[in-house]
């Protein structure tokens, strides 16, 4: 039996506002419980709220829901339609969006961290209550966990890119609920779906979906039927568990919030926001591939965050601004871009990775990196690639204020390209290593590399490798 998996995602993105959606209280993460909850958030009686949009009340009782209703959008959300383009190993796919609506977050129930005497109690932290969320709902367009992850990651990149959400999944700023169903391949009708909650990483999202797909297929193959329900993912046991069934579904008694008049977002505002929007990651990636002939995987890496894209472009601009940089035969942009991409993704990337830091916090600025790149092989060729990596380490550590020129001078790393000086060292190495020279002459090509290594060691790596190669070859051949 062949099964088709159908997945739709509901993603809650916490909007990066300084204050809550309907009060002036701060939204900063990690403050002591209830220190960032204003009278509005605690739902003291009599409180009304700040000017905003068209909202509805979703009514239900829960201790962390202070007003007994959540302000959300129901019949007329702020966004309807739209789509997200994802790329997987199978290619490019468009996932349609159903809607995106604004709502307020609830508080949190605390079951731990209470005093001994209160161990049987539940605490309520209302700091998060009233934090603005944008819930983005997709159509059931995804057909595998891989596609769901690609969608979630693309959306994650996008919301961080345009600066509306900081995307920290551990802090719950970006939460995905997955609607999963299975059907026999070729069936037109969708299977009964289950909603999976409590997935706070992409890895868990993948595991949760994979588990759920296996579970549902098993249920059907065993002759059962999938019940519509909400299931909770347990990362410790790597399984989903029933949280509530359709029978427990509440009547939320949605109705327009009488405290909030309808708000008309005018065309001028939309145009202003549009004009202020940065180039989006998909467009930037396409441009990198087209203008700079970058490989798709490099273009993807450079557009993983807006800061990375900005860093890359700034470094490129800085490099182009450094005088007397010779280029290869390709167009200057293409040559520069290839080199800069390599340095940003691989070399700087390694440091960022090792230090668990983001590119926006890199101690090496784009201007400094450009200065270093200008010294390397394709350009001035002042230093070898290997030396350049050492210089980057010194720059990262803040040596000489991170100035590549100063580090090269201070450490005496300037590449030796003087044929006379290199020839002299080559002569010395040949003289001191007669057995190796003999091996080479007997036809062992490896011996040649060994001699090159000795020349490089003698020059402390500063000799221009291609010159060394040519001169050694010439002298040995003579």
């Amino acid at each position, binding site marked *: 039996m062949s099964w088709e998996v159908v997945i739709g995602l509901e993603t809650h993105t916490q909007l990066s506002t300084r204050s809550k959606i309907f009060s002036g209280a701060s939204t900063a993460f990690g403050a002591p419980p209830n220190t960032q909850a204003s*009278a509005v958030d*605690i*739902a*003291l*009686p*009599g*409180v*009304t*709220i*700040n*000017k*905003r949009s068209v909202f509805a*009340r979703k*009514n239900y*009782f829960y*201790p962390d829901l*202070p*007003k*007994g*209703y959540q302000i959300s959008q129901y019949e007329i959300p702020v966004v309807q339609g739209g789509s997200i383009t994802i790329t997987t190993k199978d290619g490019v796919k468009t996932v349609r969006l159903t809607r995106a609506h604004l709502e307020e977050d609830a508080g949190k129930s605390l079951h731990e961290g209470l005093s001994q005497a209160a161990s049987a109690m539940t605490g*309520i932290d209302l700091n998060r209550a009233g934090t603005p969320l944008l819930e983005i709902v997709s159509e059931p367009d995804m057909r595998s966990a891989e596609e769901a992850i690609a969608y979630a990651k693309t959306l994650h990149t996008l919301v961080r890119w345009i600066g509306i959400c900081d995307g920290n999944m551990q802090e719950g700023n970006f939460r995905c609920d997955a609607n999963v169903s299975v059907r026999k391949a070729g069936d037109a009708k969708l299977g009964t779906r289950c909603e999976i909650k409590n997935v706070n990483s992409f890895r868990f999202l993948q595991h949760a979906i994979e588990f759920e797909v296996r579970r549902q297929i098993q249920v059907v193959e065993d002759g059962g039927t999938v019940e519509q329900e909400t299931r909770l993912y347990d990362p410790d046991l790597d399984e989903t568990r029933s949280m509530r069934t359709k029978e427990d579904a509440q*009547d939320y*008694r*949605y*109705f327009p*919030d*009488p*405290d*909030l*008049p309808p708000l008309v977002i005018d065309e001028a505002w939309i145009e202003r926001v549009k004009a202020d929007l940065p180039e989006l990651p998909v467009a930037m990636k396409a441009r990198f591939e087209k203008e700079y002939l970058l490989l798709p995987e490099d273009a993807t890496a450079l557009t993983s965050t807006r800061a990375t894209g900005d860093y890359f472009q700034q470094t490129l601009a800085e490099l182009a601004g450094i005088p007397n940089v010779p280029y290869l035969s390709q167009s200057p942009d293409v040559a520069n871009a290839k080199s800069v991409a390599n340095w940003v993704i691989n070399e700087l990337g390694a440091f960022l990775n090792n230090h668990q830091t983001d590119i926006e916090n890199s101690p090496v600025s784009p201007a400094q990196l450009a200065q270093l790149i200008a010294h390397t092989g394709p350009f001035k060729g002042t230093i070898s690639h290997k030396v350049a990596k050492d210089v980057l380490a010194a720059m990262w550590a803040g040596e000489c204020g991170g100035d590549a020129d100063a580090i090269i001078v201070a450490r005496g790393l300037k590449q030796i390209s003087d044929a006379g000086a290199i020839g002299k060292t080559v002569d010395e190495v040949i003289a001191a290593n007669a057995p190796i020279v003999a091996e080479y002459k007997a036809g062992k090509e490896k011996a040649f590399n060994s001699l090159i290594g000795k020349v490089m060691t003698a020059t402390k790596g500063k000799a221009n490798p291609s010159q060394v190669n040519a001169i050694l070859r010439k002298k040995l051949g003579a």
Partner: protein
Amino acid sequence: MFTAPIAELAPALASKRLSSVELTTALFDRIDALNPRLNAFLARDRKRALGAARAADARLAAGNASPLTGIPIAHKDVLMTAGWKTTCGSRMLENFVAPYSAFVVERLADAGMVLVGKTNMDEFAMGSSSETSYFGPVKNPWNVDYVPGGSSGGSSAAVAARLVPAATGTDTGGSIRQPAALSGVCGLKPTYGVCSRYGLIAFASSLDTPGPFAQTAEDCALLLNAMAGHDPRDSTSVDRPREDYARLLRAPGGAKPLAGVRIGLPKEYFGDGIDADVAAAVDAALGEFRKLGATTVEVTLPNLDLSVPVYYVIASAEASSNLARFDGVRYGHRAAKYDDLTDMYKKTRAEGFGAEVKRRILIGTYVLSHGYYDAYYLKAQQVRRLIAEGFQRAYQQCDLILGPTAPTAAFKLGAKTSDPVQMYLNDIFTVAGNLTGAPAISIPCGFDRNGLPIGLQLQGNHFRESVILNAAHRYQQATDWQRREPADIALETAR
């Protein structure tokens, strides 16, 4: 002197013929003597009030007083008042002390008014007789066997008994105007949005409107000047230029001060079900308005008969949601014993809310429920719009709409408590004003055969408070119903 309207007290305070401390002391003596029989106040604080009175006297001496500085006032207990118990007449909030003040409370304090206490009311402002208060019913100062009207009955009774020259109220379906009528005082419901609802414990958000009680229309204008204003903390607060609501009142009147004013008489207001004494008093008042130069025109208000059912659907729907926050989790009453969370909710709310509040929560929950929403809530909103359109058509023919505030004068305590529908029908002439959001005032215009006051309602289109207040003021200059005071039977008994 102490029982005079604000317009007379203010010059006395300004000229130092009277101090706020003297005035406040004298009124507290009246409150102490009369309140036990009236139950108009739920809380009062002489010491605090005298502190405020001293500050007001200093401000008067320093010459930076407002027209209200030093005037005592009482607030309906639905308004959050920092440092004061704010109970909403409910067991649910029996021991709740407000940590902040409502917008109108702040504004009146800023004007230098002296807060003497919090007034009794129907629980969560749900009622038309002030009998649903957890803290016992309010009595009508004209006859303590009768209700003062509601839900702001504590405020109307306090002003009627001259315990305070001014009080605040809130009007969701008539809760300022109907008790003003039944207690024989003036009560103004401003346009929705003119006075911020910030700090008003919400009953029905789209209808709740704070407003003043006073002896005269002129005093109401002075109070509204302080209470009105834009407040970004209430999204429905209207941002419009400041207005002096007393400006027309100061213009020279002449023999026909209301010349050019067209008064609309809806035939729906003069039909069956209106007490004969009420009809006669309103008719006599109409004669006075004609003498003052006003012309009259008959108008119709289609669907007005549906306003009470529409009101009870919408108000109850909003209330069922607004009162969900009283769950025992964060503040207010919580049941002492319970098995689990659901049990805690059930017992807390069963114990904390009275019968009328529960009835409305049930109605509201029902009309918003899946499968009933369209038939009730949505339909009610559609009819609400039709009613509002009817008023707009009427206002093309007239400036004001005149009629009785309530179909009868005050009824006896307990007379309608067993029949909610009869109680609701007392709001027949007032609820439309809340559904449309337009302003209206109730002023005294006579007495019925039992010696109980009768109220006249003047309604105007949105933001026409000054026109309404001017018409009421000119009527009060020509008549003296507003000067009639109930006898201080209880005060004499106490001595």
